């Protein structure tokens, strides 16, 4: 837990525009240790919000503090990045690298202390269940295994702030269960923000969830509170889906 602040993510009025399009429009958000889910339809601004939290893009306006620091400055941003893990929606990779080399490469980029790199890499690969494939080249892995390798690179530096964008895409049900367990484990010591379409992932792992629509947060609360939003006419196969649909309908009406 961050000694300086219980909140690892503090966002106030955050806005991001791309030309005339506003992807994120005045978002307020606070998140401490634990798993925080981010739901929303396509184009809601989830990925853009996540990329701002990952310091990949800078906000157009508003305030952003991550791990008690303002990422606008070079020094604070570099410090944040040392303690940050990020899995993009469409992760890339070098096909010729082995799993170990790929995770090691990111460990080195994240300035993991040189003496601990090897152990950190092995631990990260173990945690995603790829220990028996650590010497396999990435081009030989299935889609799900590739995503797990990418998850490994995101957690190799034991981050205090972990951002996952669609982390379970391509994972089979058993692997998704394992991944949710990993999320809960990470959430004990870090702030984990998960952006996903899969409502059941949010329900199973997240202590808190926010629903975004058209660049704004239209709901923030616990999964139970989201479920309670459902009325009898909401669409969905599960209570959480119905709650999601109802909250969205309300926001869009």
């Amino acid at each position: 837990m961050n000694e300086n602040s219980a909140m690892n993510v503090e966002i106030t009025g955050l806005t991001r525009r791309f030309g005339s399009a506003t992807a994120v429009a005045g978002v307020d958000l606070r998140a401490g240790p634990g798993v925080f889910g981010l739901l929303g339809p396509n184009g809601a601004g989830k990925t853009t919000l996540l990329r701002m939290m990952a310091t990949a893009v800078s906000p157009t306006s508003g305030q952003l503090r991550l791990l008690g620091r303002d990422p606008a400055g070079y020094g604070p941003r570099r410090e944040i990045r040392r303690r940050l893990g990020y899995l993009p929606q469409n992760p890339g990779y070098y096909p010729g690298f082995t799993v170990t080399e790929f995770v090691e490469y990111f460990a080195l980029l994240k300035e993991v202390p040189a003496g601990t790199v090897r152990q950190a890499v092995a631990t990260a690969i173990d945690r995603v269940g790829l220990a028996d494939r650590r010497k396999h080249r990435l081009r030989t892995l299935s889609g799900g295994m590739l995503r797990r390798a990418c998850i490994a690179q995101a957690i190799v530096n034991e981050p205090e702030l972990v951002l996952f964008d669609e982390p379970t895409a391509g994972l089979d049900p058993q692997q998704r269960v394992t991944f949710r367990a990993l999320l809960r484990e990470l959430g004990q010591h870090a702030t984990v923000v998960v952006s996903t379409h899969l409502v059941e992932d949010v329900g199973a792992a997240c202590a808190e969830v926010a629903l975004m629509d058209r660049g704004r947060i239209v709901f923030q609360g616990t999964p139970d509170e989201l479920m309670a939003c459902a009325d009898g006419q909401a669409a969905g196969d599960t209570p959480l889906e119905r709650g999601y649909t109802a909250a969205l309908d309300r926001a869009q009406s």
Partner: protein
Amino acid sequence: MNTPAMTATGQATATRLATAARLLRLYAASRRTPSALAAIAGCAIALRVALLGHWDAYGALQLPLVIETAAATVVAATVASPFGEPERVCGRWLPFLRLAATVALTVTATSALVIAAATGGHLAGGTLDVIRNVAGITGLGLLCAATLGGGLSWTGPTAYLLPGVYALYTQWHGPALTTPWLWPARPPHDLGGALCAGLVFAAGLAVITMRGARDRPGDGE
């Protein structure tokens, strides 16, 4: 006298033609053909500007060869598919599209260079030289695209440029390299060089038509 059946047939034909044209246009757009055409135009302008200068004996042949190689590389670079497998399994039109687009671009590149040279400059090797060189080197690029992937289609033409330029140099500073496989160094009317270049172009075109450029996993656009 137009019967309803004939009118319907005519409309169906018109619709098919319009659809085919649209498919061709979309295919061309997916292969960045407008950018390729701009690059080919740039090559033609470069050739025209280069021909303003007075070049010595083998320089007058080497300089156009460099630009011809650039144009051929551009043509070969367009065969890479941004879609991969989803496109491959789509249906029977893909080979025709590949064939038509590649031939059209090759002809366009050759014509652009010939026209640029004809606007006042003196092209030492003449039109036949341009056709042979562009076709042959394009064939090399197509073969590279088929084996190494569209992103690496440039490796063959670029590597071939060096022995090609060197072979031209040896025509003045012997011993001369006279193998027809180094067709840039052969006289424009030489049948052997034309056959070799044609063979390479035909082989590249055939492979690309049937198989397309190799898809490389993890390759972004």
